[in-house]
């Protein structure tokens, strides 16, 4: 009797240990299935969720049905629920529910499924191609002209209607990076952009892993929380957004500053990290928000000098390539700050107060609120608060206070949130993402 009890005890323990691992595996499979469902249905074409695009995923056609709001939103909800449950499991049972190999396999599968499919939910990638072709094929400055300046170009018909007259708002480094793709034709450039987004995502995830390990966090949880995030996979990678390239630079800078040996990174690494942030800002300006926090946390000349050197070099290259408009990022940011998207919290709050939308005075109020938040974060960083967490809060505050909120904007703070001790940042980032998903649900509740 006692022998039987003795042999049964470890079996029961093993079973209870295996249960979370089995649950994690089931959640991971559900995440992959939901992503595959969206991609296969999107490949069938004629969907309001898939922008007009060259048929790059014809080989997937026939496996799915036309992607409607109902299927998409159910798949998004399933993904979000599975992601939330998997994330909670990973954070609670550090390193026991998913092996590093399984985590990498899950994240790689999700990225590759979306990479293989058509462009999802956004026409932005065609704007990137159009700006590159404006410069390379038509000899026009993309900082002075919108895609409509070359309306005969084969990519023009794919550019979003709202953007055909708008000059590029992206940094000169990104525009120069996109130039080599212009000569590949629309289909070649599209695959080039998708590959660029995939590689940037892989790099971001690798750096997230490295930073998490160096800062004493579970790298498996960190990489899954970023790489399996439904908004990251479906909206960010699905749309081949250049935010992923910006995030690669962001995590590159954090990795340089996170040197385990010696405990404090040397002056050269600090200068390099600041220069990488400036390079990221020359791709998409938002990442510049990290710089003041890095400088305040170090209070040394090296990051300031590194940033200044990169700014001078970037300005010279930008000026040589595009003239003064290529380096006037402030004008581009001011222009974009005036846009209003239906998903922005500012718009939702305006509706809550019975207003039809955001008024000019609201823009000023939101900017003032952002300044107050950034000042508080700088003060906290001065007092010793983790600059990476402060940067994450700053990026989250920017996305919450902007009147032009898109799904991929609320991805910015995520890689920072998983490598910081302040778990409130991760909770707040995921809560904002959850609210974004909830706001998409009206076609599910009242189909039109």
């Amino acid at each position, binding site marked *: 009797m006692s022998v039987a009890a003795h042999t049964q005890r470890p079996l029961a323990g093993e079973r209870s240990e295996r249960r979370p691992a089995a649950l994690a595996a089931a959640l991971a499979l559900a995440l992959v299935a939901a992503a595959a469902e969206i991609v296969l249905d999107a490949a069938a074409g004629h969907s309001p969720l898939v922008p007009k695009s060259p048929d790059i995923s014809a080989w997937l056609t026939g496996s799915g049905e036309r992607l409607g709001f109902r299927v998409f939103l159910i798949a998004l909800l399933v993904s979000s629920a599975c992601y939330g449950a998997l994330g909670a499991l990973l954070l609670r049972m550090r390193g026991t529910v998913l092996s590093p190999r399984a985590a990498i396999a899950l994240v790689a599968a999700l990225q590759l499924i979306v990479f293989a499919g058509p462009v999802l939910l956004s026409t932005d990638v065609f704007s990137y191609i159009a700006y590159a072709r404006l410069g390379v094929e038509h000899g026009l400055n993309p900082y002075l002209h919108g895609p409509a300046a070359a309306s005969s170009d084969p990519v023009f018909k794919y550019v979003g209607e709202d953007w055909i007259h708008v000059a590029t708002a992206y940094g000169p480094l990104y525009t120069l990076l996109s130039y080599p793709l212009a000569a590949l034709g629309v289909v070649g450039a599209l695959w080039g952009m998708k590959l660029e987004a995939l590689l940037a995502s892989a790099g971001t995830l690798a750096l997230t892993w490295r930073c998490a390990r160096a800062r004493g966090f579970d790298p498996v949880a960190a990489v899954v929380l970023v790489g399996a995030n439904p908004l990251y996979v479906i909206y960010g990678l699905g749309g081949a957004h250049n935010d992923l390239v910006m995030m690669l630079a962001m995590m590159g800078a954090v990795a340089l500053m996170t040197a385990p040996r010696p405990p404090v990174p040397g002056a050269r690494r600090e200068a390099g990290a600041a220069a990488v942030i400036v390079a990221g800002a020359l791709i998409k300006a938002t990442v510049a928000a990290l710089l003041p926090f890095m400088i305040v946390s170090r209070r040394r000349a090296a990051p300031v000098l590194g940033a200044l050197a990169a700014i001078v070099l970037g300005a010279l290259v930008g000026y040589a390539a595009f003239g003064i408009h290529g380096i006037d990022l402030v004008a581009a940011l001011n222009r974009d700050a005036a846009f209003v998207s239906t998903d922005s*919290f500012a718009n*939702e709050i305006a509706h*809550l107060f019975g207003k039809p939308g955001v008024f000019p005075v609201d823009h000023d109020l939101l900017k003032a609120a952002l300044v107050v938040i950034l000042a508080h974060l700088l003060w906290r960083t001065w007092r010793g608060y983790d600059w990476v967490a402060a940067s994450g809060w700053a990026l989250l505050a920017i996305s919450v206070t902007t009147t032009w909120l898109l799904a991929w904007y609320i991805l910015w703070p995520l890689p920072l949130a998983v490598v910081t001790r302040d778990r409130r940042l991760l909770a707040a980032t995921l809560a904002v993402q959850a609210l974004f998903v909830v706001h998409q649900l009206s076609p599910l509740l009242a189909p*039109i």
Partner: protein
Amino acid sequence: MSGASLPVERRRRWPPQWLRPRAEEPRSRGRLWRIETLALALVGLFLAVATIHDLVRQTHINHRLVADLRTWRHYTRHDYVNISIDQESLGLDSGREILCGNTSPGAPGAHTQICLAIWGPVIDGRRSVHGGWYLPPYHPDLRANRYGCFGPAGRGRCPR
């Protein structure tokens, strides 16, 4: 010897203590953390209320637009898909819409269009038609293009 150690001492004196970076925040941060967390929770709650409110608002609008489309199809006896909906001309957020669609089969706007002004509560999946007008093919819904205005909503909306 003392001359050689002087620069090191100077280096140690600069930057002064208050300017030196800190590895951690001072101990008094507990109260600040609580205040910040409370502020975050309140902001989160406010954003959640705004999001749910907007979702409900959008769902009601969708519900209304479905009723409007059904009304247009029932009134004109045409089961067409491409019907344009104007939510602004009769007042943004007024719940009053103008729906325009072809009077005969064809591409959107390629034939004479009939526009209906629709508002009121949804009853049996439809709302009330309060009037309307016609538009020539390929003409946007501008006052100058309208003809054959009918019903109280159409009164005074045609150029003559």
